[in-house]
């Protein structure tokens, strides 16, 4: 299964994870 997020954010929004990285619920994805 997969979850896709599509959202609007300011131009300076940055993801703080890397592609292929394991993530867990509540972990920071971006800011």
């Amino acid at each position, binding site marked *: 299964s997969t979850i896709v997020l599509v959202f609007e954010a300011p*131009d300076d929004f940055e993801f703080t994870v890397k592609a292929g990285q394991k993530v867990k619920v509540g972990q920071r994805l971006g800011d």
Partner: protein
Amino acid sequence: LINAWTETPTKWYPLPLAVGALLLVAMQYRKKVKRASKEVHVDEDGMEVIRLKGPWHVHVIGALPLRYISRLWGHVNSLELPVWFRPIGFRLYAVAFGCNLDEIEPSDLRAYRSLGDFFYRKLKPGARPVDDAILVSPADGRMLHFGTIEDLHIEQVKGITYSLDALLGVEHPKSRISVHSTLAHEHNRDMSVVDDREFANVNGIDYSLDQLIGGSSTPGTPTSEDMPASPVATPLKFGAQIDASVVEPERSIQETLVHDASVALEMGFKASVPLTGGKRRSTSGTSVKPGNALYFSVIYLAPGDYHRFHSPTAWVVEKRRHFVGELYSVSPYMAKRLENLFVLNERVALLGRWRHGFFSMIPVGATNVGSIKINFDQALSTNVRGRPPPPGTYTEAVYAAASPILNGQPLTAAQEMGGFCLG
């Protein structure tokens, strides 16, 4: 070999013309096939027609009755296991798929009646600390891909894209119908359009005067056209008409107000997010304000992962669109080979808004996990028997009745939203 290599004389001679001609034909054929695979077929409204594309083995997989297999898989895994077998069986599963049994609730493996039950397990309170960032992970899994959305296309893998409109659904005024919430209907609540006209402010929360005092529209069943202004398009219908029964959590009015207010404050809430007139607008109605951009991220949940999903931020879910589709595997292997994978598969697009504007979360089903549950939506039923309608069609429900002020289902960051079930 050494002798052959050193002593065999090299003799050069021209290739026959026919060989060269054949080579050119082969190259032309390859080019043509490549072009055909990239061709976009459009319908009478100019919308892309989603078709199965990929190498031959993808077509072989596509010919299988995947939805039936998925339901059968779910049925088999819902069978009750003998109590003595449960700890052994689930421990074996945990070792094979890397589940952490220390964090599950209940921790007694005998309490899980079936593999399906174990698959949809809960975590102990506090097992997942929540970061204070504006966006947190909604699930345990692997971040497959992320980035910005260019030309309203999302990159599935490098070089393969799919349309944002196909993922979220497109506006189709010809087939617009009334879709309403049962609670809204029961409460006879007015659903006047929220616009930028008049706002009141109570406790730092802005909301429209219409919402506060009731608008001028005729009371009764609200229609899609009466629904609050949204960053996405007005509802459309391709499937049967549905009622969205919003499940009100078991809490007092005071608790509900506190919950809604906390979401509103976290969002920097404005009841109406005037997103229309933005710099870019797709046919699905998604638009962005100047200074903003559209982003996407894709998280893949492996079979051993915790399969409930949570809210990735404080936001309000205004509506959901249920796309009944195929149930291909969504593993990275397939994602690299099957084009339009995420718009072919069955999925539930939850659309709403957060502090920066439009926000959506789309759980996508797969062969082994065809059922998607949304805790606050009893009407939603996924992976049901029957032939799926053409890709791109969906049924829609609105959650306006869940919160009178926020016009949708408010969610706090990391609040449990639902999950994926086996089959």
